[in-house]
Structure formats: structure tokens, C-alpha cells
């Protein structure tokens, strides 16, 4: 009986790994593609090209918290269930993309419109999958001269902010709540179980500056005490825990040394 | 029953003797399994070439292999590990990605300027430059020939270049860092070598982390090719390797061929 259970368990774990598409490498997104999300809850069904959202532009202008907590976007493509009507009603993309909200001296172009029917050039600015749309901002021009890093977008976002090349908004009038000042939690060490791999130094400060608290707790990290939630690199690669962000928007997991910082003597 | 088992195992062991003894004739049989040495590691890239009216690109690994680590191209620059998976377009090269990271007409390497890759428009004159990549390997448009290049290098059975020896003998010098492409990192401690138990009569495999990380770093294999960090979690067979998974991602096409069994199956046969 025990043997049967063990074998079944082993088989399932093998199958699990098999479905995880291992053993072969995939194409790595180029710097301008990294962080790309395709949103297609209703577009195709409405005979419109699905939305292609590249994180990098918004990443340079707003904190993660603003969109994912204040506005309320989900953290996986399609999970927000955004409809054109939601945008028209002034939520989700429509929170800012209403043609009137100003950021500096530019206004965010109006998203979805009341009149259904023919698409126009403005619609194409987002609904661009499969189309040859020239975006307003060119990635290379945008990040020219910025401090560079390897992998991901190829940009050192941290340094860019330090050097005030980017100054992300963290508050939108009429949308964000006036909250109490953030109280930063301690940094801590996560011990790596693989012999020889340096321990991870996790910086709460760096994460909360952009994310606040609610983005990670408890949805992504549910353990209330350090050590309660045990996870391995395998689950991280599958897009859980650290992988929710560090698989496709924040610096990618390929960059081992960005986290594995503390040499184990 | 026991008798039959004994007889069978003796028979099988007896079979392996002539096979092992004919190791000297090994390379002769390899010719049926491997392509000619100069084509070993060749990759044909045709995501867009023929559609654009140019010959597909044939990329021979051996030249770049002698000058750069695997890590530099496959991690720092970001080439995929499978033919046509990178989906390189001329625009990408012109913008300084992929081939264009080095082939930009400006970067100096080995005392020479590296020729420019794709251009927005090209004239007939420039066609010669295009043909350096967009051509068949034997078309005569290539600068370096395998035969002359590999003459002085130690060979493996099948006339393949023994890259390990080439490096240890100082005949090739491999670059791992390119300015503007690579970023300095604290080197991760090289993991231990370990043995992989085989489930058949073949010798166990001794896997050398040290040898692999010298050329590949960690990221090339982990996590996409080998997702687990705990030995034994990922189970795979020679069948999968032959399909280009796991070890086969490199050792079926570019690194020493999987047909050279005794390069990996090193420990003595189990008694």
C-alpha cells in the first residue's frame, strides 16, 4: 500500500515537472518586450485586436502600488476582467486614460469610447496585437543614457530612480486614499538549502517603497511568521511567491546574484 | 528461472566486450550517427530570411565557440538554445540586439572591427557582406574554413574538436565578458561534481559542475533546462536527451556529441 502511494506520488511529481515544460530553453524576451502582458478577456470576442501592455513605460512613471493596489489591477494577465465599459466608467485603464487627467504637461489619452463601431488610431495604441503599430514612445530612445543592467528590461530601475531619471507617481487625486506614512519592516535573511548557494538577503525597504504592504501580503506571502511559508525555487519559477513579479516584470530570476547575496562560510 | 537470468546477463556482458574493445573503430561507426565535423553544431535560421528574399542564415557554432563562452551569447546577449526560437529579425540586429550586439561595424575584437550585420536597405555591393551569414557554409562567402581552423586542434572521435583540450593547451582563448553587453557579477561558487546513477547496465555518469560552469555560468542550465536544485528530483532518460531535452539541449547539437558515450558514462561498470 505504502509503495503504491509512494509510486503514485512520484509519478504525479514527475508528471507535474513534465507539464512544467522543463528540459528545454525558451526564447528570452528582448529588453523592450520584457514585462509584456497580452490582455484578451473580451477583445477577440468583440473582433478587436487584444491589448498589448508593455510594463516598462508605466514602470517608469508610477509605482507598482499605484496600479496594483490603488487602482486594483490583478497581478496576472486577464485576471482583472477589464471591459471597455469599466474603462469608460473611469476605472482600471480609464482611471487615467480619460483624456483629461494630466501628468506633468501631458494628458493621458482617452481609452475606450462610448460609440462602438469602427476602431480608430487611438484604439490601436493599446489594441495592437498582430498589428504594426508605432508606439508614441520608443523604448531605446526612452532609456537612452539610463543606468543599464543585464537581463529583464536591461535598465537599472533602482539607480534610475536614485539619479532622479524617473520619479514615479505614488498618488493620484480622487483615486488614491490618503494613507498613513509607510512603516518599513526589517530586512531579513532567507537561508538557502542548496549547499554552496549564498543566502538571500530580502530587503523589505526596497520592496515596500514601490509596492506598499498589501500587494504581497497575504495574497502572495501568507505566512505571518518568517519560516512558516516554505517554498523552493521550483515554485518560484512556476510564478508563485517571488516569481509573481520576478518571472516577468521585475528583474528576472535568471539573475541569481541579485538575491543570493550572502556568502555562506 | 535463476539460470535464465544468469545466462542472459552473461550474454549481455559478453556483447559489451567487443563493443568496448572496438573503441578504436568507434569513430568509423560514428560517421553514420554524426554529420561531417564541419556541420556539427550548424544552425539554420530562417524565421524571416526566405520571406524577405534572402538565403537563410547558416550559423556554424565552431567559430564563435572558439572565441566566446556559451554564457556570453546565450545569457548576456540572450540567444535561445533552439534553432529559430529566437526569431531574430533584421531590425533587431540593426538595433544592436542579438547578432547586432557585436556585428555592428564598430566593435573591435581581436584587433579588428567586427563586420556590420543587417542593414535597413542593402545595395548589390553590400550583398557580399550579407552573404557572409545568409549563405550556405560552402558557398565560399565565409572567411574562415573549418579544415584550416581545426587543423592544429586535438580531435575527438568523429573528427570533432576537443574544446576542453584546446583551451587547456592554450590554443584557444575564450572571452566571457563584453563591454556594454555583459555586467560584472560576483561569481557564484561552483557547485560540486556528482554522480548520476543510471538505471541500466551502463556506467554511472560523473557530472562535472566545474567544467560546465566555466563556460555556461549557472543561468544557462538553471532553471529552464534543469529546474530542480535538489539532485534526483528531475528524472529523465536517454530518450529525452536524444530528443534535445536536458543534457541534449547542448550535447545533441553543439557540445560533444551524446554518441561519445564514454565521455559521460565514466565510472567502471557495476560488478
Amino acid at each position: 500500500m505504502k509503495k503504491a502511494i509512494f509510486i503514485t506520488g512520484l509519478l504525479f511529481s514527475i508528471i507535474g515537472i513534465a507539464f512544467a515544460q522543463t528540459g528545454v530553453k525558451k526564447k528570452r524576451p528582448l529588453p523592450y518586450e520584457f514585462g509584456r502582458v497580452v490582455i484578451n478577456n473580451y477583445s477577440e470576442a468583440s473582433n478587436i485586436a487584444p491589448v498589448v501592455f508593455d510594463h516598462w513605460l508605466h514602470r517608469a512613471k508610477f509605482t507598482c502600488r499605484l496600479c496594483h493596489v490603488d487602482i486594483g489591477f490583478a497581478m496576472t494577465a486577464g485576471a482583472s476582467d477589464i471591459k471597455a465599459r469599466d474603462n469608460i466608467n473611469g476605472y482600471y485603464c480609464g482611471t487615467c486614460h480619460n483624456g483629461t487627467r494630466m501628468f506633468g504637461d501631458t494628458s493621458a489619452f482617452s481609452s475606450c469610447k462610448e460609440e462602438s463601431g469602427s476602431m480608430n488610431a487611438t484604439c490601436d495604441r493599446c489594441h495592437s496585437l498582430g498589428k504594426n503599430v508605432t508606439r508614441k514612445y520608443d523604448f531605446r530612445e526612452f532609456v537612452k543614457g539610463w543606468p543599464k543592467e543585464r537581463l529583464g528590461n536591461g535598465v537599472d530601475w533602482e539607480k534610475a530612480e536614485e539619479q532622479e531619471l524617473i520619479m514615479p507617481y505614488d498618488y493620484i487625486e480622487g483615486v488614491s486614499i490618503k494613507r498613513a506614512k509607510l512603516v518599513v519592516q526589517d530586512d531579513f535573511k532567507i537561508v538557502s538549502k542548496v549547499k554552496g548557494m549564498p543566502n538571500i538577503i530580502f530587503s523589505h525597504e526596497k520592496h515596500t517603497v514601490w509596492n506598499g504592504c498589501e500587494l504581497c501580503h497575504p495574497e502572495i506571502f501568507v505566512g505571518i511568521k518568517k519560516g512558516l511559508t516554505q517554498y523552493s525555487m521550483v515554485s518560484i519559477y512556476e510564478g508563485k511567491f517571488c516569481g509573481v513579479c520576478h518571472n516577468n516584470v521585475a528583474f528576472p530570476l535568471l539573475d541569481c546574484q541579485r538575491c543570493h547575496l550572502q556568502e555562506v562560510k | 528461472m535463476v539460470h535464465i537470468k544468469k545466462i542472459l546477463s552473461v550474454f549481455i556482458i559478453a556483447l559489451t566486450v567487443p563493443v568496448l574493445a572496438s573503441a578504436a573503430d568507434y569513430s568509423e561507426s560514428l560517421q553514420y550517427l554524426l554529420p561531417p565535423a564541419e556541420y556539427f553544431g550548424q544552425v539554420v535560421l530562417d524565421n524571416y530570411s526566405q520571406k524577405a528574399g534572402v538565403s537563410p542564415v547558416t550559423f556554424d557554432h565552431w567559430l564563435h565557440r572558439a572565441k566566446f563562452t556559451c554564457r556570453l551569447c546565450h545569457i548576456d546577449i540572450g540567444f535561445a538554445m533552439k534553432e529559430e526560437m529566437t526569431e531574430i529579425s533584421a531590425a533587431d540586429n540593426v538595433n544592436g540586439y542579438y547578432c547586432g550586439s557585436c556585428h555592428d561595424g564598430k566593435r573591435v575584437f581581436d584587433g579588428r572591427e567586427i563586420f556590420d550585420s543587417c542593414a535597413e536597405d542593402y545595395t548589390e555591393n553590400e550583398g557580399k557582406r550579407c552573404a557572409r551569414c545568409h549563405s550556405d557554409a560552402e558557398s565560399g562567402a565565409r572567411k574562415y574554413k573549418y579544415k584550416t581552423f581545426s587543423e592544429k586542434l586535438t580531435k575527438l572521435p568523429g573528427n570533432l574538436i576537443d574544446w576542453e583540450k584546446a583551451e587547456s593547451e592554450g590554443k584557444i582563448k575564450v572571452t566571457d565578458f563584453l563591454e556594454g553587453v555583459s555586467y560584472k557579477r560576483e561569481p557564484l561558487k561552483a557547485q560540486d561534481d556528482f554522480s548520476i546513477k543510471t538505471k541500466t547496465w551502463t556506467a554511472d555518469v560523473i557530472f562535472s559542475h566545474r567544467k560546465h560552469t566555466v563556460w555556461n555560468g549557472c543561468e544557462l542550465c538553471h532553471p529552464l533546462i534543469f529546474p530542480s536544485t535538489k539532485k534526483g528530483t528531475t528524472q529523465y532518460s536517454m530518450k529525452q536527451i536524444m530528443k534535445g531535452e536536458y543534457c541534449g539541449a547542448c550535447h545533441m547539437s553543439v557540445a560533444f556529441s551524446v554518441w561519445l558515450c564514454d565521455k559521460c558514462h565514466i565510472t567502471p561498470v557495476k560488478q
Partner: protein
Amino acid sequence: MKNIARLFFIGFLLFNFWGRGFIVGGSLNTVYAQEQGDWKQEYAEICAKTQNAMELSVAELKDRIERADKLQERINKLEGPLAETEKKVFTKRLKMCRELYSFALEYKEHKE
């Protein structure tokens, strides 16, 4: 005298709990409309302390969680042209803040 006082008292009570609806009729809608908008204000008040949730006391966390649960019920009953969108959006926003308070509460209770 006493009877007059009693009459006034009963009249007062009736007016407050029953008569108001008829006498002040029109303004009841305003009250209701205000209530409709009030829930957003309530949301802003409840979730204003997420950035320092760990500093709040157990009692305050419990209070905010309770208020959040009540507010969620109000959100579920929203009506009007924006209702579908607002239900979806505010359910998500409120959930994040309510769950964070719950997380902080669990931490504090576990510590004790």
C-alpha cells in the same frame, strides 16, 4: 400639565421614528444618495492605515476588519449604471486592505 408633556413626548418620538419619512420626504433621497457616496468615504477611512498596519492595536485591527466586512455587504448591494464596475473594482480594493489587516491581526495574536 403632565399629560401635555406626555403628548409632546409621544409626538416627538413618532416624529423622529415615523413621521420624518412623510414630513421630510424629499430629503430622504438626499440622505440615501449621500449614503450611496458615503461608502466610498467609508472605504477610504477603513483602508487609510494599511501602510502602518503593523502598528495598530489588536482592537483597532478587529474593528477595521469588521467595518470592511460590513462595507463589502453594502458594495454587494450597489445599484445604478456604474454598479457592475464598481462592485468588481471595490471588491478587489477592499479585499486587499481587509486581508492585510487580517494578516497583521494574525501576526499579533500569534505573537501573544
